[in-house]
């Protein structure tokens, strides 16, 4: 019975989901580039700077941001948007900046390894 009610996959088929574990990296990098952003801006930036290839389930930014707040990688403060709305703005902390370096290193290590597997010398 249970096999019949398997959930249908989500339908944004023309975009790729971001590889697991890289969301932190993307957020950190985005904040490093752009300084002070609120959640929507982060999502927009990730999508546009990946030429709309990378698809973030936008809501999942928020649990990630909460975890990063707890870890002390980002700082949050309330501010006002251009459209005069209240929004929570995130900035990178020193710990976050260090973390970004570590995340990039790790990412490159993994990507390099995968590349080697795919194209053996």
């Amino acid at each position, binding site marked *: 019975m249970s096999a019949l009610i398997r959930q249908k996959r989500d339908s*944004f088929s023309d975009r790729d989901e971001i590889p697991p574990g890289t969301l932190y990296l993307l957020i950190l990098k985005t904040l490093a580039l752009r300084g002070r952003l*609120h*959640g*929507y801006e982060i*999502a927009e930036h990730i999508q546009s700077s990946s030429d709309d290839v990378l698809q973030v*389930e*936008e*809501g*999942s930014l*928020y*649990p990630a941001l*909460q*975890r990063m*707040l*707890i*870890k*002390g990688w980002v700082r949050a403060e*309330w501010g006002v948007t251009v459209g005069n*709305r*209240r*929004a*929570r703005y995130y900035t990178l902390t020193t*710990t976050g900046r260090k973390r970004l370096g570590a995340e990039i290193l790790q990412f490159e290590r993994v990507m390099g390894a995968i590349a080697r597997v795919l194209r053996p010398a």
Partner: protein
Amino acid sequence: MSLIGEWKRKLQMQLRRGEFERDLGDEMHLHIELRREQQIARGLDAEAARASAMRRFGNTTRMQEKSRAAWGWNWLETLAQDAGYGVRAMLRTPTITVVALVSLALGIGANTAIFSFLDAVLLRSLPVKNPQQLVMLGEGDMAGITQSFASTGLYSYPFYRQFHSKNAVFSETAAIFSMTNHVHGFVDQHRDTELINVKMVSGTYFQTLGVGAQIGRVLDENDDSHDGDHPVAVISAGFWKRRLGGDPSALHHTLRLGEKIYNIVGVAPTEFFGTTVGEAPDAWVPLSMTDFMPPGWGGHKDNFSESLFILGRLKPGVTVAQATANVNVLFRQILRGFPDAKLTQENLALLARSHVPLESMERGLSVLRSDYSEPLKILMITVGLVLLIACANIGNLLLARSTVRARELALRQALGAHRVRIVRQLLTESLVLALAGGALGVGFAAVANRVLLRMISNGQDSIPLNVSLNLNLLAFTTAMTVLTALLFGTLPALRATRLDLSTSLKSGQSGTVTSGRVRAAKVLVIGQVAFSLVLMMAACLFLRTLNNLSRVDVGFNKENILRLDIDSSALGFKGADPRANALYHEIENRVSAMPGVGAASFSAFTFAEGSWNGWVTVPGMPIDRKIDVNHDVIGNSYFKVMQIPLVAGRTFGPEDTSSSQQVAIVGERMAKYLFPTGSPLGRTFMIGLPGDRNKPDQKLVVGVVKDVKFRDLEAPDLYIDYLPYSQSGWGFGDFEVRYTGNFGAVAREVQEAIHAINRNLPIANVTTMHAQVARSYTNRRIIAELSAFFGLVAMFLSCIGLYGLMSYMVTLRRGEIGVRMALGASRADVAWRVMREVSVWIVAGIAVGLPVTWEGERLAQRMLYGLSGIDLMSLAAAVGVLLIAGLVAGYLPARRASRIDPVVPLRYE
């Protein structure tokens, strides 16, 4: 560092939770709003834009939950929730909770208490540096002074000195006098003497153990270098606090011990109690002072006065096997090298055969260990079984409760709760129960420890044994508690969650799902009965043993004898001082003349006080080294006081003086051995061997007495002879008084009489001979009393189990019973059916328990006395008591069943 920051932030979020929730909500709302506007800007209509924004955002609730999870402590929250739920569940069923808590507290508390003793006596390492490197020469199972050649248990001081310098396997070695000197001394000029326990040790003792002083210094080699000129002492922290009030200037005080005044040079660390578990010396004094320390054992420079334990710290990398080899080579070499060694054929053969084993000193020496290791192990098993029975009981209670909650649990599962989640919740509830029980148990254990210590000390000063709460113990108790929770909680949790949902939901009675549960409960109850049988049987066996021991014929009349110790060495008398003999005579005469006193006499020993023993030589007979004779030195009225019957000849009298013929009285067994033919009267023997240095005197046998028990109740009859103190001086002693009337009054008058003769004579250990005999089997008394107690507890718990299960089953079968009664079954029939079922359980339990019982009795054989094979009387008693108690427990539900009104249950069917 970052972890702490993380926790701080988490805590902040917990504290301002509402604010954070709101912030998150606002933030998410804004996001969706902006997206919607953006979509409208791209040309979608309002509805499509909203849908698109929502879709792209994902499930808001889930995101919020995930965010909350990030704030952490989710597991903790669930745990707290479950625990809270557990507490409420406990409060809802107070009877069950109280029964469970009491049995848990008792079970865990008893286990904690017994384990704390097991730990203190058997397991704990000495509080010294790297105790695992310490070994001692020989087994350390005897203490005293011996002259026997090639002793591998005790060593002379000259031997130690040579061993110390020659050995190649120990980085440090130390010597300890095997006995503790109980000295009546005093601090500074106080003059009021008190008993001070002095341990004589080599100057290397503290260094070998790696123990420093908390004030001043410890003993060193210099203190032990010249005989008699280093009267210094290191005092224990206990003595320092007790006698000097913890005075920081302790080093300005002195100790007067015997003739000499000792400077206090240091205070030992608080946790240090020496090297013997269950003893607590007040002071450590260098062995160089041996000859001056009361009671004057002496023999410090004698190559063959063997009285020391030797211990060493293994050099790194040296194995015990290598060390043993080296030690044995040295042992022979040193003994043969002594100029006064008597290298007779026999001694050489003895030396060739001897072997010095190395024993670990990691846990120190202990006299308690030989007496209590087996009782403690048996008791540990006992209390373990009691806890198991308690667990089974609680398991059953929870099973019954889970039936009541079946609908609730089924509903939750139907609504999608994972089984694991529900099992976890039920186990958390069990854990809450167990932790509460464990906490109560620790409190109970603290009380039980004091009671147990008092029992072991048996009326004397409390044995200095550290059984207070420690990390070891807490770890044990915690492990015990968690294990308990798992034991009693797992089965009900699994049972409760494995069910056919629809049936449970449909039927309030949930009758059809209980058969498995009842089967599990039956197994538990039968197990309880089986374990109870084992414990009841053990209790019966140990009680019978105790009874047998109390009836052993000791050979003397132990009733109405007062005994006390005086310490004549406190007056400066040493050994065979004629002034001491005069004093003894005067005391004997004065006390004998008191009203209410039949006779009074001094003696070197009475029952269970140790011995002076050795070989004897009869002219013209080969020496039998297997015959070890116990010598006692006594006053003229000793046999009259003890009421030991004279078989032949005479007792000692005024005619036996220091200048008259040396005389002896022998026990019957000794008489038979020494003089197999003809009358022993008028024959002679020598104490010791012909080759001994102190040419032994010929003793003329003037009397034969009945044999008595001497060392303990269980040893077979020993060879005993008696010498008069008028001829063989004995410096300090036991005083025995046969009295009539009130013990307290006589004891006071006797002490007054003694002090009237000499005010400064210290008196100690005033008690009755009866108590002294009973004290020799304190360990059996403890094991009997405790096993009886736990046997009853076990039985009581099992009866609760039987009662609970049967009541539950009667409730379940109300319908069936109703039908039966409606069809004509009488009330007696119904009751009988219930009783029959209870009996079947009990009999099944007994059948399971019997083989365990037999095996158990075999294992405990060494703790039993006067019982051989399977003791049918104990078995009958155990089975009988269990049957009666079980049937009583079953009777109540049976009666309830027989009173069921057939109409009531039928109406519900």
